[in-house]
């Protein structure tokens, strides 16, 4: 299978499965499993294709850029798709046992299943008891379509090259996430879901307002062609500010993180994993596209440093708050606030002319590491809740006796959160550190190190309780093996990704934005870059054959005359139009920093293999 088909499958398969799972309740699990398998196969084919042939574009409907929507599969998008698939498959495997176990979710308030008792209803209906009893099957029944909708939204998001289409995908993502939080039922979860809904809706509208302004100014919503059309000016400055504000609120960037901890802590465990690992990464991904690709001409260093400073504040504040949480799931949720901060350090570091690509790869590597580690930890927290009936950290003494595999998974994932070698968290942090060192931005180094120490403190706080020997350890409810092993598999992935840092860096360089790729000729002393055997020639980048924008002079508002779609010219041809690159060519100068990034990734791996002594 080749690109348009693989991409279409990644979007249509989960969408159709979600609709079927709604129409045909009781078959949700089978539908999710079938589509997860099909999507994994399609994603493998797509990855191989873009590694061999470079960026792939597809014109939906055959219309082409300004009039129609384009799909794009490039290194960044496929990297995100792979992370989504990894977490998606794990959740598909984990959830049936979790929902079958019928344990109370998180808070004691949960026991009166208040899903049926909305505030408007004063007296409990006489049938309250029977309603309670059917509460659990409903959670499973509705989990599958909602989960599949969420997966659709993520795949559509990571394949889209159109800022309005990204808005539609964001809506699908936001509504899916809110409803999944509400699925837990109970007063706390519903309150958190409601607050999440307001933030998510308001943020979406801010983003949409920005899109409208961009369309009014540039007469296109196509991401690749915006780069050449976006001229600095009040309309686009305001548009970018609105979009960034909205997306930062959705991504829970400090100080707009207030909605995240209650929502993530009160959702069912597999949902918390999806939210922390994937849902908050969607807006971050769009921010990267806007700041480094579409509107890179508008970005000033001061702006990137402001985002980086907010990220740094998030690291410190989130970690300190995590340290004092009484409940495990709240601790993990605050840790998400902190870990997202590291990804925002990417903005000042990757925009800088030196070793930008290293920071780019490092930040994204970190994002992937966090997704795997956080999923593993939330699934472990779900196991602990299941076994012990609570997640108060104080009372977790001796849980290791009951759940040795889960405790091991927690430890491994914690390793990656803290950033100890040989985990992938280490590889990401190492690349970020090297980039800040090369650029002389020492203050980020201080923040990264302080954040790592704080992370070590909160991870150890849980581990010391878990490994404390107690005279009579509690006799917990048995946990289904699949729940324990799924958590462990993801923890192993979080560590193992560190060994795949080289492959990830290579994938991420496919169609990496101009802004990070071709600006630095004198990156870090690119350790004899020739030392690494290039498995294949660098992806051949050809110009997009009909990119009308690239031929226009950068005039602010050209009377727009889109070239007629090529459906009449060569119907059926050019369905695999390679290499958008927004009209720049891969020069020798562009290759150097890419090699440097790969080199850094290898270096990180070598370090981690060497362990502490390195």
């Amino acid at each position, binding site marked *: 299978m080749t690109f348009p088909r693989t991409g*279409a499958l990644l979007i249509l398969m989960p969408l159709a499965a979600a609709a079927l799972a709604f129409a045909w309740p009781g078959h949700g699990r089978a539908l999710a499993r079938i589509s997860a398998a099909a999507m994994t196969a399609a994603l493998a084919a797509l990855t191989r294709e873009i590694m061999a042939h470079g960026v792939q574009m597809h014109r939906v409907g055959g219309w082409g850029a300004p009039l129609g929507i384009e799909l794009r599969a490039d290194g960044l998008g496929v990297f995100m798709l792979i992370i989504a698939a990894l977490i998606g498959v794990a959740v598909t495997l984990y959830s049936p046992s979790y929902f079958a176990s019928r344990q109370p979710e998180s808070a004691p308030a949960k026991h009166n299943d208040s*899903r049926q008792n909305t505030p408007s209803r004063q007296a409990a209906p006489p049938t309250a008891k029977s309603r309670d009893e059917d509460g659990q099957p409903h959670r499973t029944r509705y989990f599958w379509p909602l989960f599949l909708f969420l997966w659709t939204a993520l795949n559509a998001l990571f394949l889209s090259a159109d800022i309005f*289409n990204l808005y539609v995908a964001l*809506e699908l993502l936001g*509504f899916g996430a809110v409803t999944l939080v509400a699925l837990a039922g109970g007063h706390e979860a519903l309150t958190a879901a409601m607050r999440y809904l307001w933030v998510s809706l308001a943020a979406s509208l801010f983003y949409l307002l920005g899109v409208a302004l961009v369309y009014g100014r540039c007469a296109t919503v196509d991401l690749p062609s915006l780069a050449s059309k976006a001229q600095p000016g*009040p309309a686009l400055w305001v548009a970018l500010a609105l979009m960034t504000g909205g997306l930062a609120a959705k991504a829970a960037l400090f100080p707009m993180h207030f909605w995240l901890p209650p929502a993530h802590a009160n959702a069912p465990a597999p949902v918390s994993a999806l939210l922390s690992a994937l849902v908050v990464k969607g807006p971050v991904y769009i921010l990267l596209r806007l700041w480094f690709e579409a509107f890179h001409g508008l970005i000033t260093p001061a702006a990137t440093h402001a985002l980086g400073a907010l990220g740094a504040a998030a690291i410190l504040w989130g970690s300190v708050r995590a340290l004092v949480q009484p409940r495990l799931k709240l601790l993990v949720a605050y840790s998400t606030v902190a870990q997202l901060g590291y990804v925002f350090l990417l903005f000042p570091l990757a925009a800088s002319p030196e070793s930008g690509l290293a920071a780019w790869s490092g930040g994204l590597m970190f994002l992937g590491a966090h997704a795997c580690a956080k999923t593993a930890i939330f699934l472990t927290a779900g196991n602990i809740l299941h076994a012990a009936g609570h997640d108060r950290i104080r009372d977790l003494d001796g849980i290791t006796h009951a759940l040795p595999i889960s405790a091991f998974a927690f430890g491994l994932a914690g390793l990656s959160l803290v950033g100890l070698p040989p985990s992938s968290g280490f590889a990401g942090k190492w690349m970020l550190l090297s980039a800040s060192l090369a650029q002389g931005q020492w203050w980020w180094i201080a923040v990264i190190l302080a954040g790592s120490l704080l992370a070590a403190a909160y991870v150890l706080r849980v581990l010391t309780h878990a490994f404390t020997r107690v005279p009579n350890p509690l006799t917990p409810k048995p946990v289904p093996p699949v729940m324990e092993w799924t958590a462990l598999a993801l923890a192993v992935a979080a560590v193992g990704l560190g060994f795949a840092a080289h492959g990830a860096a290579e994938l991420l360089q496919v169609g990496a934005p101009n802004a990070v790729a071709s600006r630095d000729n004198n990156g870090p002393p690119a350790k004899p870059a020739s030392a690494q055997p290039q498995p294949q020639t660098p992806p051949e980048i050809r110009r997009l054959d009909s990119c009308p924008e690239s031929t226009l002079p950068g005039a602010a508002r050209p009377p727009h005359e889109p070239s007629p779609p090529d459906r009449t010219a060569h119907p059926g041809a050019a369905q695999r139009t390679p290499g958008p690159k927004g009209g720049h060519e891969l020069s020798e100068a562009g290759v150097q920093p890419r090699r440097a990034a790969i080199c850094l990734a290898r270096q990180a791996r070598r370090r981690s293999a060497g362990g502490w002594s390195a």
Partner: protein
Amino acid sequence: MTRRACIGLLSLGLAAGLSWAVMRLPDAPAGLTAAALAQLPESGVTNPVTAVLLNYRGYDTLLEVGVLLLAMTGVWSLRRGEWPAGDLRDRPLLMSLLRVLLPMLVLAAGYLLWIGAFAPGGAFQGGALLGGALVLALLGGLARRLLRQEPLLRAGLALGVLAFAAAGALALGLTGRLLQYPRGHGGAWIMGIELATLISVGLTLGLLYLGGRPEKDP
């Protein structure tokens, strides 16, 4: 009070920034109107709005139909709906009004769907009328038998997404592009997709009125 002042200042700043940006927009916006009109003969319909919604940017609409079904799934996952208590069998005057009104509304919804290819109208407008008709029927206690057919309702609600996605996949097989309709048959494809969407939109809007899934109290 300070909090209110802060919110007020923020809103003022936002309004000022927006006005500044909008004032500086080009007077003659360089939109895509000309391009959309130029391609109209290719699209299979003569109403430019329908061409944008179902052809140029049909993929957006596919995902939006998904958002509608997602909203319905979310509402049904939260709680049971409350069945309206009314019964019109003892109120002959209202009943005779509904007897005339309901068929007219369904007819008008069909007309809006058909006219959407040439003039303002389409699946969403028709679906809104259909939803209104369903709410009237629910209020009058006339749709109880329909509400008991839950499998049928679920199928009807999912129909729009399923048909749209199937059309996209089929088009990919036929023309090599997602949602590119075979040349010369655009109008028929759009009408088929819109018919399925009309049914789903109408059911969604009507059933949202219940505020939950239509299971009966045990």
